[in-house]
């Protein structure tokens, strides 16, 4: 049969597109397949001990929510490609050819049923890195055009902003000037400044969209007499959620270029878990080495100011019992377990731990980009049931966190499960304690946002 009349050569467009998607996904997977990923794919003995470590399983005890079962979707086609027994006797080892239907099923698994929190990893006797497998799956799906549109859009918008920064600069400067006036009124200190583009500052502070991440930081830096400047960009990196190193790198590059151009010593990221993972831990690997500046989280810096006696805090500004939710990106996966507790012990009167907390903290269900995807809201809120139970059991009317996505999810869980708590960021508590010490009113972050 000649090439021209082979059935595959005259396949209808839908079939051809399907094959193309599968082939692209496979290529992306092969590119991601490094030694760590091979170990994670090969070592699982399917003992099922990881089940209760996953907040999805804890909230809905369905075998499909066992982390090992989730990763089996990827292992099935890995074995078909890379295991001789998987090629000869696929039924024996659960191997399977990858199809477009598999990709469709994998989309919900990788993007909506795993927040990449790594609680299963820390609980696995083998240390299987299921988040790494799910991130590879996300990369495959993104390459095949099957990633959630919202995440793609947000990542592309961030890249576009980096490419057209000058167009935004003047508008941004005006917004910052207004914010500066507001901060001056709140603190009663007309010398408070929010510097932009300040060369040779010690700190380049990177907030998020919204004044609520800038105003408290400005007050804290001012009170600590820090030499700082505000970034033109936002900290979030949706390329990380997509498992797309090229996009993640492009988004991170905006901040790196800005920090290098200004000659700062530290880039300090606002209360955002994945932003810390992206720039502190992943970006040096993407760019092939360490940066000429440190990457820190605002909680680390505040904790340092407290320990150095640079902030005068009155904890009576926060008299109610307060508990703390560890962001998985900052805590278990970022190593920032002690800094937020130093801040809380100094800024509030009655701090109570959740059980469990720290490296064993249960994910709230808002990670992995899930809070940005409206179509999976129900899955997200259901998966947060365990965290809601945990918060209720703590008996504290205020829940603090140091991650914007966790904050949004906890606020939604509060409404869904009628917890009757107030969700706040750590910076808000610190500013309340600062202002009280100066005899001023609390910040009322909601108004500022």
């Amino acid at each position: 049969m000649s090439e021209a009349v082979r059935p595959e050569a005259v396949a209808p467009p839908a079939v051809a597109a399907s094959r193309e998607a599968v082939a692209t996904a496979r290529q992306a997977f092969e590119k991601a397949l490094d030694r760590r990923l091979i170990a994670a794919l090969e070592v699982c003995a399917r003992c099922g001990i990881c089940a209760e470590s996953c907040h999805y399983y804890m909230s809905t005890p369905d075998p499909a929510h066992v982390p090992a079962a989730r990763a089996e979707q990827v292992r099935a086609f890995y074995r078909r490609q890379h295991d001789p027994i998987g090629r000869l006797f696929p039924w024996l080892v659960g191997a399977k050819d990858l199809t477009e239907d598999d990709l469709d099923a994998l989309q919900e698994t990788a993007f909506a049923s795993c927040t990449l929190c790594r609680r299963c990893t820390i609980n696995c006797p083998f240390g299987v890195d299921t988040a790494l497998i799910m991130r590879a799956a996300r990369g495959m799906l993104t390459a095949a055009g099957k990633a959630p549109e919202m995440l793609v859009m947000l990542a592309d918008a961030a890249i576009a902003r980096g490419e057209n920064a000058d167009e935004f600069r003047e508008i941004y400067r005006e917004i910052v000037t207004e914010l500066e006036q507001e901060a001056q009124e709140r603190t009663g200190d007309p010398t408070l400044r929010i510097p932009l583009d300040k060369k040779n500052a010690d700190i380049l502070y990177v907030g998020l969209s919204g004044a609520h991440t800038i105003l408290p930081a400005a007050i804290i830096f001012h009170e600590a007499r820090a030499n700082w400047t505000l970034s033109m960009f936002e900290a979030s990196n949706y390329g990380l959620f997509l498992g797309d190193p090229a996009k993640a790198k492009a988004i991170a590059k905006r901040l790196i270029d800005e920090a290098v151009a200004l000659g700062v010593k530290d880039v300090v990221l606002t209360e955002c878990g994945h932003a810390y993972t992206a720039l502190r831990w992943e970006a040096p690997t993407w760019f092939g080495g360490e940066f000429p500046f440190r990457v820190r989280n605002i909680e680390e810096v505040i904790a340092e100011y407290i320990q150095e006696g640079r902030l005068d805090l009155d904890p009576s500004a926060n008299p109610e019992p307060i508990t703390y939710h560890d962001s998985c990106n900052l805590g278990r996966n970022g190593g920032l377990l002690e800094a937020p507790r130093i801040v809380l012990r100094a800024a509030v009167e009655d701090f109570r731990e959740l059980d469990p907390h720290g490296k064993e903290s249960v994910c709230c269900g808002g990670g992995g980009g899930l809070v940005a995807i409206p179509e999976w809201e129900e899955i997200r809120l259901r998966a947060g049931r365990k965290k809601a139970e945990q918060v209720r059991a703590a008996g504290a009317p205020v829940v603090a966190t140091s991650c914007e996505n966790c904050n949004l999810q906890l606020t939604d869980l509060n409404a869904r499960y009628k917890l009757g708590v107030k969700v706040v960021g750590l910076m808000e508590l610190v500013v309340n304690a600062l202002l009280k010490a100066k005899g001023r009113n609390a910040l009322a972050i909601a108004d500022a946002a």
Partner: protein
Amino acid sequence: MNAMEIETWVVAASAGVAAAGLWRHLSRTLARPLRPERARPAGSPAAGVRYAFTTGMMPWAKESTRIHLLAYLRGIVFHIGIGAGVLGLVLGLWAPALPGGSRLLLIAVLAAGALAGWGGLTARVLEPGLRALSTPDDFVSVALVSLFLSAGALAWWDARWMGAFLLLGAATLVAIPFTKIRHCFYYFFSRYFFGLFYGRRGVLGAAHHE
């Protein structure tokens, strides 16, 4: 050539197959990039790796193993049994006469390992969640190793079983690179990467936060 000599050659050939198969796994894995983390460490990667292979394997170190204590201990006993099985196989070929106390200890460890193996297999059949998670390989591999350990306990009790033990040992060796049994090989990679990751980030092992 007598039966014992034939069995010795069969076991040796099987060990060769296992070694070649694992060598293939090793070279295939090492052919892939390592992609080491480049970020400035917040803790000690070496301390993390030490933790991963020592304290981190203790039953109390993880919430999961505290919840599934029985299943975890069963797994530990099974794997200690496998270690005894390999020792029993080597001794069966070259030093089949052991002093009484040592022989009884070997039998006890092999028997405990076998019981743990059969117990694990039963759990895999009976527990719906575990059954749903399993592939045929999970049943075949655990059954094969449990048979090997059972035969080992019998062989060291009564030498008439030694032939069956050696042949089952040979079958198990051949199965290593081709079945889930090879997780014993990848375990070292996985725990190493686990320790490196969490040690570097100052989460496990000794941390020195900046």
